[in-house]
Each structure stands twice: as structure tokens, then as C-alpha cells.
């Protein structure tokens, strides 16, 4: 049975691709593939299974969902495909959800975690103060960690990529400087840092003291965090942060506070 295995892997956030014949011989046949485990099901031909599942693992790695054409035995070259029926295979990739790591267990954190969950993020909240970093305060978060930024980013940083986000909501230098240092060492797609323009200016001085001065590093920091839409409440601010993340991910020019001047609140 394919469906129970598919549902189980999706729920456990394990990468999995579902292949379905949507045109040609064996219409409706399905095959499930994941890295490092045996395939389940068949598209009706051993060689087609081998070639298409190999392609699907590549698609899965890239997070792509698409339709691919094969010959009935997995032929792929145009010459081989002449005079044979074409099997169209829908390759559907289920990648683990993107991650958002939020440093600082403050009021804004709960709102941001809620909005991030709506958008499908796996949300981690981290703060060194155990009275604040509790599951009871952040029931929507997937994990609440009582620790400092450096160990978290040393351990998880290598897994972060373009789809992931780090949001630093503490205004406390002893917390946000190591968080920024750790974040800049990753390939994470978004680094947002909360604080007024004045806070950001003094933060830049402290970052310079620890040797973070390169303009390409500083340009990665979205601070003040979020879009210039006049947000006031934690919820509105959360929306403005998530909208900025979406805009940056797809490369749109959006009115980021980090790229403007003037008051954040009017």
C-alpha cells in the first residue's frame, strides 16, 4: 500500500516523491520513492521504475514537482522515444517544510510563530531564559529551546538553506550579536533583526567590535525587520516580517524598512 507510507513520510517531514502515470500504458500506476530506502509500488516496468525514480530523487532534492516523459521501458532520448507510446509521469515532490528559527521569547515571537505556522514553516523558538522559553507560552512552536544562539546555529546551521529564515527578536546585545554571527555563517535565505534604526546603528558598532564589517554580510541583515507598512501590533509586525520573507525569496522588490529611512511608526 502506497498511501499509508506516503502519509507517514509526509507527516514525519521525510523527503518523499510520488510518481503517477497520468498518460500512456498503466494509467494511474504509482511508485513511491525516498532517498536511502526501497521503492514501493511500480509504474509497470522495472526499467521505467529505475530510471524514473532516479530522476524523481533529483527533482526531490531540488523541491520540484513536474511531468516527465518516458518510453514504456524508461527510454529518455528523442531517438528511443520515436515510434513508442509515451508514458507521462507526474513526479510530485514532498520536501520537508522550510524552517524558521526565532531567537528571543518575546510577545512578537508568539505572533510570528503563529503566522509562520500558517505559512507551513517548522518553527523553532530559542531563548536562554527558561522562564520565558516555555511550551506553554509558545504552544504553536514545533520546538522551544532553552539555550544560547551559538550551539543552536552550530548544530542546525549547516542544514539551513534558501527557503529557511532566522528572525532575531531580542534587543539584547549579549544575545543578538552571537545570533547574528551564527546566522551569517549559514546559507539561510533570510536574516531579520528586530530593533529601531537607533538600535540597529549601535548594533552595527558592536558587530564591528567582533569583526563583522563586510558590506555583503551586513547587507544580509534585514533590520529594522519587516516591510514598511506601518505595523503596530505583534500580529501586524509578524505579517510584515513574513511578507518580507516571501518577497525576498522570490526576488521581488518590496518596501523593506531596512532599505528606507524615516520613522518606523508614524
Amino acid at each position: 500500500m502506497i498511501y499509508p507510507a506516503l502519509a507517514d513520510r509526509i507527516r514525519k517531514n521525510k523527503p518523499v516523491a510520488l510518481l503517477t502515470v497520468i498518460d500512456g500504458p498503466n494509467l494511474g500506476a504509482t511508485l513511491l520513492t525516498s532517498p536511502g530506502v526501497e521503492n514501493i509500488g511500480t509504474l509497470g516496468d522495472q526499467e521505467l521504475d529505475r530510471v524514473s525514480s532516479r530522476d524523481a530523487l533529483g527533482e526531490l532534492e531540488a523541491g520540484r514537482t513536474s511531468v516527465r516523459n518516458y518510453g514504456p521501458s524508461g527510454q529518455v532520448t528523442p531517438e528511443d522515444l520515436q515510434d513508442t507510446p509515451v508514458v507521462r509521469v507526474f513526479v510530485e515532490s514532498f520536501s520537508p517544510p522550510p524552517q524558521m528559527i526565532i531567537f528571543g521569547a518575546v510577545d512578537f515571537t508568539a505572533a510570528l510563530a503563529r503566522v509562520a505556522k500558517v505559512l507551513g514553516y517548522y518553527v523553532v523558538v530559542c531563548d536562554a531564559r527558561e522562564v520565558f522559553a516555555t511550551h506553554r507560552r509558545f504552544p504553536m512552536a514545533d520546538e522551544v529551546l532553552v539555550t544560547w544562539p551559538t550551539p543552536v546555529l552550530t548544530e542546525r546551521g549547516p542544514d539551513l538553506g534558501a527557503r529557511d529564515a532566522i528572525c532575531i527578536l531580542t534587543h539584547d546585545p549579549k544575545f543578538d550579536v552571537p545570533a547574528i554571527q551564527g546566522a551569517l555563517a549559514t546559507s539561510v535565505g533570510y536574516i531579520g533583526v528586530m530593533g529601531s534604526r537607533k538600535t540597529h546603528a549601535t548594533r552595527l558598532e558592536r558587530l564591528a567590535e567582533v569583526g563583522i564589517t563586510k558590506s555583503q554580510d551586513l547587507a544580509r541583515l534585514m533590520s529594522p525587520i519587516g516591510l514598511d507598512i506601518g505595523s503596530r501590533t505583534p500580529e501586524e509586525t509578524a505579517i510584515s516580517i513574513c511578507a518580507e520573507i516571501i518577497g525576498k525569496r522570490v526576488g521581488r522588490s518590496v518596501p523593506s524598512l531596512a532599505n528606507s529611512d524615516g520613522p518606523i511608526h508614524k
Partner: protein
Amino acid sequence: MREILGDIDRWRAQHKRIAVARVVDIEGSGPRDPGAAMAVNEDGEVCGSVSGGCVEGAVVAEALEILKNNSPGQLVKFGYSDDEAFAVGLTCGGVVHLFIQPLSW
């Protein structure tokens, strides 16, 4: 698919027959990307969506037909509603290709 697993599990536990419709391709503007999915059970109950609400009604009818005929699955295309080729359509001007099949796997 992720968001409809709960409903599908419930229907499976009730031994309902289920059809799944998935967006496999879009041309031009389309409200949902490939992979968007909805499911329909034999009683006509629905979960999930494959467009902005434009074609779901027609998809339910197709899905019930597929369950009734024991069809292995079918590609269905919906396009712009003013085009006479498409009875039910999208107002956005795009074309959406769906694959609808019984959840027999």
C-alpha cells in the same frame, strides 16, 4: 496533499471510496501550483482545493464519475470560461491540467 491527509485518513477508516484530483500542470496564470490537491469521497464530500474555487464543482462531478466507472484515472483540462472549448473555467485566463484517479493505492 499534506493538508488533506487528515480527511483522507478519516474516510479510509470509514471504508469510503475516494478519488484524488491533483494539479499536474498549469499554463499561463493559475491560482494553484502543480501538486495542489483535493479529494472527493463516494458521498460527494470534499476536502482541499485545486483552484481559487473556479473549477472545484466540475472536479467533484468528474471524480464521482471516475469512482462510478472504476476508471483508472483521467487527465482533465480547464481553461478560460469564455472559450467555448471549456464549459467550466478559470476567470484568470490560465489553463489548469488535473489528474483525477481513485485512491486505490
